[in-house]
C-alpha cells in the first residue's frame, strides 16, 4: 500500500529546475533534509547513474527516478509536483510534472523496489486521477488522492 512507502510530508510542490538532473538533486535534498536518507551524495550518484542508463519517464507526465542504496533503509519514497514540467525522456514524449523518487536498500534478488515501483505506477494510470492530482492544493490533498487511487 502507498502509505507503506510515504506520507504527506514526503510530498513537495516547491521544486523547480531546468533539467531532470537538477530536479533529482533537489528532490533528494528534500528527502535528506527530512532525514529519510543519510548520504545525499551517494544517493544523487546512484539515481543519476540509473537515469543515464535509461530514462525513467513513463506516460501522462509521470517519472519514477529510482536507485538502490547501501543504506539501511527499506523503501524511501518522495514526490515532487513541479511548477513547470521537465523533460524526462518519457515513453510518450510528454514532459513530466509528477516526479516519484524511490530509493531501496540493495538486497540480492531486488524484488522489493519493483513492487514499490508497480504500486506507484498503478495509481497514476487514469487521466481523471491525473487531473485531480494536478489540481491538488496541498500535499495532504495530493496524498489523499493517491491513497484513494491505491485502494480503488
Amino acid at each position, binding site marked *: 500500500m502507498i502509505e507503506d512507502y510515504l506520507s504527506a510530508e514526503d510530498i513537495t510542490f516547491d521544486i523547480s529546475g531546468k533539467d531532470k538532473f537538477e530536479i533529482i538533486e533537489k528532490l533528494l535534498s528534500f528527502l535528506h533534509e527530512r532525514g529519510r536518507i543519510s548520504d545525499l551524495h551517494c544517493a544523487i550518484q546512484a539515481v543519476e547513474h540509473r537515469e543515464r*542508463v*535509461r530514462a525513467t519517464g*513513463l*506516460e501522462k507526465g509521470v517519472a519514477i527516478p529510482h536507485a538502490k542504496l547501501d543504506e539501511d533503509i527499506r523503501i524511501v519514497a518522495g514526490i515532487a509536483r513541479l511548477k513547470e514540467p521537465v523533460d524526462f525522456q518519457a515513453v510518450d514524449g510528454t514532459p513530466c510534472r509528477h516526479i516519484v523518487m524511490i530509493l531501496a536498500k540493495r538486497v*540480492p*534478488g*531486488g524484488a522489493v523496489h*519493483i513492487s514499490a*515501483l508497480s504500486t506507484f505506477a498503478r495509481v497514476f494510470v487514469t487521466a481523471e486521477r491525473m487531473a485531480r492530482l494536478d489540481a491538488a492544493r496541498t500535499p495532504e490533498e495530493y496524498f489523499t488522492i493517491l491513497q484513494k487511487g491505491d485502494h480503488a
Partner: protein
Amino acid sequence: MRKIIIPVLAVAAAGFLIAQFVDTLLALALILAAAVALLSIAEGGGARLKMIVTFSLGLAAFFIFVSRHGLAAAPGFSDISEFQLLAETIHLNIFIFLFGLYVFVNCLSYTGIVGDIAWKVVKLSGGRLTIILVAIVLLTSFLAGIFDGATVASIMGIITLTILLSGGMSSKDIVSVMLLLVICTNVGGVWFVLGEPTNVLAAEKMGINPLFFLRYALPFAAIAVAAACIVAFRVAVRKPKVSKERPEMEVLLEGISLKRVHAGHGNLLETMINLGEIQVKMIGKIEEMIDRGIPDFDAALRAGVPEDVVHHALSINLNSKELSRGLIDYWNARQKKDPMAEIIIGDLLEYVRDEYKKRRKSRVFIFTGAGVLLVILGVHSFFQQLPTWVSTLSAGAVAFIGIGATAKRSILGQAWHDLTEAFFLIPLFGIISLINTMGGFELIGEKILSLGGTAVGGLTVFFSSGLVSSVADNIAVMDAVTNLMAQSVHWQFFSLAAIVGTALGGFGSPIASVQAIILSTLIRRVSRITFFGWIKRIGLFFLVLAVLYAALLFLFDLLSVVPDAPRVGTSAGAG
C-alpha cells in the same frame, strides 16, 4: 525415449546374431554405424539420451567381443594394472584437455570480453553493416580456432543476432548471416589445434604438432573465411547503417540465450529437470515452444510451471536472483503492455552493465591464462612428451583465479556440465577401439590406399569424413578415420584430409555439429528453418568449398607439401 530404445535393442540383437552366424568384425561395424546414426535421432533429447544410446550399444559390442575373444583380448583388460591402455582407449587425456578448455572459455564468457570487442567493432565501423559483418566473420573465425566452436557459436551468435535485429535487417538476410557463422565456427576454426575437439583428438592420437595446423590447415580456413567475407559483403551492401549503441535487446538476449554462461546447470529446462521441479508432461510442451523460438522461461511459464519454480531455476541458471526476477517481471509487464516494462529493462541494463564492470578486473587473468596456454603449446611443439592437457588445465587455473568468489562454483559446474555432454563418446571410442584391435580399420585403410595412391586415398578420407560428419558426430567420425591411417606413412596428409573433411561436414546439416545446433536454434527466433531448408540454403556453399578443398588437397599431394613421415609419440595403437 521409446523411439530410441526399440532401435537400440534391435541393433544389439542384430549384432549378437551377426556375430554368432556371420562375423564378429561385421557385427561390431554394424553396431558402430547404428550408434552413430541413432545419435542423430537422439540429438534433440540431450546428453542423457545420447548416453543411453552409446552406453547400451557399447555394452553390447563389448559382450560380443568378450564372448568371442575373451576378456584378456579387450584393450586395457588383459592386466588389471593396464590403466594407461584403458585411459588411452577412452581418450582420457582429451577429456582432461577439454575440461581445462571449458574452464577457460567459461571464465572468458564471464568477463564479457568478446561482447565488448564486438560492440567496439560496431562503434569503430560507424554502424556500416558491410564492415561490421566482415569483422564478425573474421572475429568468429579467429576465435573458433582458439576456443571450441560451440562456445564461439553461442557468444557470437547472440551478439550478431542483436546487432542485426537492431539494424532492422530482414529475417532472410539474418538467416544468411547466421549460416555464415556456422561455416566460420566449423571450417573457419581449423587453423589451430584448439579450435575443435576433432582437432584435439587428431593431434593427440596421431601426435600432430600444433604448428601443423598453422602450416597446413590454415589455407583451408582462409578459403572459407574469404568466401564467407564475400557473401557477408553481398548481404550487407546497400543496407542502412545500424545503431552504434548497445540496445536493450542485449539484456533480453543475455537472459534468453540458448545456453547461459556461468550457470552450472546447462539450459533452463535441464535445470528444472535436475531440480525435479517440473512435471514430465510439461517437458515436451516446453521443448516444442522453445523450438518455435519462444524464450525458455516464457515457454515454461506458458506451459503452466509456477512462477516461483521458474524464478528459482532461472536464478540458478543465471547465477543471479536479481536478473531472474527482473527478466520475469519484464516479461510479465511486456505481455500486459505495462509501461513498467521500460523501467524494469532499465534496471536490468544497469545491473548487467555494473556486473560487467566488476568483471573487467578478471580480464587480466584471462590474458595471462591465454599467454600460459600458448607458451605451453609452443613448448609442446618441441617436447611432445609434455601432454597437451597441461596447457588448457594451466590456462583454466590461471583464468579461474580472477573470477569473483560467488561465480567460482558456477564456472566449475558449467565446465563439468559441458564435459559431461561429451561422455556419450566414451562407449563409441570403446567400440572403435575393439574394431581396431581386430584389425578392422587396417583392412579398410589398405583398401582405400589400394584405390590409387595418396591423392585418391586422401580425397576418399576427405569426402567420406565430410559426408558422414554432416549427419553423425564429428568426434566419433574423426576417431574412426584416424584409425584408417594409423599405419600409413602418409598419415599427416590423411590427417589433414580428415580434419578438413569433418570441419566441412560440421555445417552440412542443422544437426552436423554442436555449433550448427546452437545457431539453428538462434535462427528459429527470426525464421523457421527445416532440415532440408538448411541444406538448400547452405548446399551451394558446401559444394563450392568441397570442390575447392579437394583441389587444394590434390595440389598439396602433387607438390608434396605435407611430407610423409613415420609416426612418433602417438596413442593411436590403442584405439
